[in-house]
């Protein structure tokens, strides 16, 4: 098969759809409840599956009494390690860097509380739920290890997927010796759980050795062969449907045990099976953000400029797999400094294995870095914004590369102006409002990578003028249905309403992962390229057709717009797509594409989106309840395909920042390892009343190097910088810096009492 062609050189110009703040194409479906999520599928003759989870965190199951479960009316079968066949691939073997070690009833080992130890299959959901409750297990258990003091320390080989755990540059020791002052912050961040509103679910139905799976998934192109491997069938035998995800945030990019168990059950029972995780089951098998203990230290010269930046992070993972949040890499490209030393160490907790959770590494690390920056600013006697501008990085300090684009100064200015960051007292506890509430202002810098993934897409133009574009992309709420559609239509030079568009299905070309804030750039780039390929082929036909007005124009630039092909230099010369195809007697043209990032650019430039966030908090002076009252962010992320949806991503990220700063914390009992707040009453995320007056400004930025279309992502950018901004604002209001996130009333009380003493 021929290589997927690259974008045609003469049509790299986004058209009339991109840049429009269109309302979501899937909006009507979502507001009417007609959008189908995985668990909404209800095939005939289905069995409901519910898994029973281990009540210990470390050890093994010594006996499983399933008699009562089997006897419960409606229960049809109970899967246990005794009767569950092996998968075709060892679930502990990491065949790709994205393969998690999963638990699928293959042995009696228990590696975290809540791990599946049996699966109950029943005619009704109620019977399956009760069957799971009736399973009685006995265990040989070891003391669970939860927390950095009790966990098992080790030296990790990598953080994230494959990033080295240590990095240094410049003469760190020498520069540190030269420094005249330093600022250092130590903070702990907790376990955090993604908790997408839609719990993980699967509906699976086999037909011979073909399986159809309804499952929310952010990386269909990876999931398809992954499922095929587990079940020993060719990838083309797997049909995976994921048109809508009820949130992902990183938790639905990888294959997990419970869903593989659902697919396995369907095969064993020869009936469709629906397995939906309970909310309480979302705190173990489906990843989370590592807990961290971090130290950040900046050393400065007498002019308050950084000489050395040090960041160490002790990061949690599970006892049986390695995925460590790269928190200490968060500041590598942030502030100017001639020398850097960052390193990660690891601690094994008896929890599930962590994974990427919205802005992995950077959210976690910047939460501490931005506090350290403010401590340094305080030592320098400078306003935090002035101090950040003083230490602004014109080049990536970790490698000296120029940024592909960095409109961060514009972000600082726009956000500061809108916020009213002026005459801010340097000292804390200086501001009160008319109701006597302590008031504080703080800021943080936002940054996020702009990666690019090899996505593929296909476009078809038909003789009757209709067209279709497709890729196996994923919309988990970030707006892929709309944004990718806009880019596909522009690639084809047609109005969005005039093309059919499809994502979320494994039959479609691999649109790569909706993750890393790269989906719009990657899948969108591929769709644009596919449309371009159609235009290129159309142009070839027209310029060689002596009856076409474009005959002989083979060396000139031709463009497509509104279904018409014309000379770029002379738009009057052209004709409609349908005329070209009809005259040529061609039924349809198929185009293939993948987006492009110039290889040389990747080597030359540092590629990031940037932003600045300013926060105002009000704190009760005696009771220390905190409210974020204003949040203003300004962000620069290259070309914005849909400003409305981009803003929603940014404000969504900023509200995640409120949750990270003030609310989120996964609590496990230290003895049993069981999660204690595995529900929405105990695990707090912001409610509507927590949301302040919020503004996300988009700052113009052109990035000619990041990829052919100049598109960067905004899905994760909003959290980074916000968490630190809030912590800094709380300090400004109260004079207290807490040693851990989330910032708790009891910690502010203790801190305030210590200040008085």
């Amino acid at each position: 098969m021929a290589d997927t062609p690259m974008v045609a050189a003469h049509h790299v110009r986004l058209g009339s759809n991109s840049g429009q703040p269109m309302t979501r194409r899937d909006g009507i479906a979502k507001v009417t409840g007609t959008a189908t999520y995985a668990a909404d599928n209800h095939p005939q003759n289905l069995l409901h599956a519910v898994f029973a989870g281990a009540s210990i965190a470390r050890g093994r199951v010594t006996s499983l009494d399933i008699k009562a479960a089997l006897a419960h009316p409606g229960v049809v079968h109970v899967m246990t390690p005794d009767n569950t066949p092996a998968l075709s691939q060892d679930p502990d073997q990491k065949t790709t860097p994205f393969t998690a070690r999963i638990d699928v009833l293959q042995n009696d080992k228990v590696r975290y509380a809540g791990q599946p130890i049996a699966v109950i299959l029943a005619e009704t959901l109620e019977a399956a739920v009760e069957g799971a409750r009736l399973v009685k297990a006995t265990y040989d258990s070891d003391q669970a290890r939860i927390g950095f003091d009790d966990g098992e320390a080790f030296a990790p080989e990598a953080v994230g997927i494959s990033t080295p755990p240590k990095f240094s540059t410049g003469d760190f020791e020498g520069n540190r010796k030269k420094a005249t002052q330093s600022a250092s912050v130590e903070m702990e961040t907790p376990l955090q759980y993604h908790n997408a509103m839609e719990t993980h679910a699967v509906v699976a139905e086999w037909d011979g050795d073909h399986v159809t799976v309804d499952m929310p998934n952010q990386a269909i192109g990876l999931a398809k062969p992954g499922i095929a491997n587990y079940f020993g069938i060719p990838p083309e035998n797997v049909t995976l449907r994921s048109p809508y995800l009820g949130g992902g945030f990183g938790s639905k990019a990888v294959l997990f045990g419970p869903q593989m168990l659902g697919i396995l059950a369907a095969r064993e029972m020869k009936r469709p099976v629906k397995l939906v995780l309970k909310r309480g089951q979302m705190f173990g098998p489906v990843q989370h953000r590592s807990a961290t203990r971090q130290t950040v230290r900046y050393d400065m010269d007498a002019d308050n400029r950084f000489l050395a930046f040090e960041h160490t992070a002790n990061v949690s993972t599970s006892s049986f797999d390695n995925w460590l949040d790269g928190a200490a890499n968060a500041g590598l490209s942030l502030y100017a400094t001639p020398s850097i030393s960052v390193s990660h160490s690891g601690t094994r907790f008896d929890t599930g294995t962590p994974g990427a959770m919205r802005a992995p590494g950077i959210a976690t690390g910047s939460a501490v870095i931005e506090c350290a920056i403010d401590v340094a600013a305080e030592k320098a006697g400078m306003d935090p914004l002035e101090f950040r501008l003083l230490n602004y990085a014109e080049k990536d300090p970790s490698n000296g590369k120029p940024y592909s684009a960095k409109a961060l100064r514009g972000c600082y200015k726009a956000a500061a102006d809108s916020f009213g960051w002026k005459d801010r007292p340097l000292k804390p506890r200086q501001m009160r409002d008319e109701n006597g509430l302590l008031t504080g202002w703080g800021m943080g810098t936002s940054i996020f990578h702009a990666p690019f993934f090899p996505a593929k897409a296909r476009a078809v133009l038909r003789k009757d003028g209709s067209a279709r574009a497709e890729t196996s992309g994923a919309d988990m709420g970030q707006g892929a249905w709309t944004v990718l559609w806009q880019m596909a239509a522009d690639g084809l030079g047609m109005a969005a309403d005039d093309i059919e568009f499809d994502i979320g299905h494994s039959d479609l070309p691999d649109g790569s992962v909706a993750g890393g804030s790269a989906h719009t750039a990657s899948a969108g780039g591929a769709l644009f390229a596919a449309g371009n390929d159609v235009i290129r082929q159309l142009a070839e036909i027209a310029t060689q057709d002596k009856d076409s007005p474009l005959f002989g124009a083979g060396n000139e630039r031709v463009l497509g717009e509104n279904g018409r092909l014309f000379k770029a230099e002379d738009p009057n010369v052209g004709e409609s797509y349908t005329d070209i195809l009809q005259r040529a007697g061609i039924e349809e043209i198929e185009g293939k594409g993948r987006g492009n990032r110039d290889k040389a650019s990747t080597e030359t430039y540092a590629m990031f989106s940037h932003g600045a966030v300013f926060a105002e908090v009000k704190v009760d002076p005696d009771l220390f309840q905190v409210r974020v009252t204003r949040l203003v962010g300004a962000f620069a992320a290259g070309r914005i395909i849909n400003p409305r949806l981009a803003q929603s991503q940014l404000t969504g990220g900023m509200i995640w920042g409120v949750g990270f700063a003030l609310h989120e914390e996964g609590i496990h009992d230290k003895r049993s390892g069981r999660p204690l707040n595995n529900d929405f009453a105990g695990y707090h995320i912001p409610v509507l009343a927590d949301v302040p007056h919020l503004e996300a400004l988009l700052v113009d930025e052109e990035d000619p190097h990041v990829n052919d279309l100049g598109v960067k992502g905004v899905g994760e950018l909003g959290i980074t910088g916000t968490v630190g901004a809030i912590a800094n604002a709380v300090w400004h209001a109260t004079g207290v810096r807490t040693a851990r996130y989330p910032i708790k009333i009891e910690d502010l009380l203790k801190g305030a009492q210590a200040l008085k003493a």
Partner: protein
Amino acid sequence: MKDTTLRINGEERKLSADTRTTLLDALRNHLGLTGSKKGCDHGQCGACTVMVNGRRINSCLTLACMHDGDEITTVEGLGEPGNLSPLQAAFVKHDGFQCGYCTPGQICSATAMLEEIKDNWPSNVSGSLTGEAKLTPEEISERMSGNLCRCAAYPNIVDAIREAAEASS
């Protein structure tokens, strides 16, 4: 097992199900109405909000068999593609959702909440009933705090509800 007659979106539906079946699971698993979503199954997120006799409740925290003869309104009864309620249209216009999973619950909750406001819940303290409950963003925020949105589409949700409220007054 129990037989229950429910009036759902104006239509009489008969249900024969396990007494343990919640109203939410009855809608989703027995009556083909999957618009209402299960976010937590413990009344802590509001994704399952429906209206029973005009009042918003969490359908996961009530048993279907208890609602014999009750009038139940789900998101499917508030509008459909091609015939959106003003509130649904406002949600689309203001981008009051992202992943959309909490959205049916938001729509049902907001619809009922706007009726509560019209009925002046709560009215003024100290006996004066002449004041009207004004719909400020702060009031919307507090009254809608029973509907969690992990995507945090909150600011746009408030805008959508305000527009719909102003349009209907």
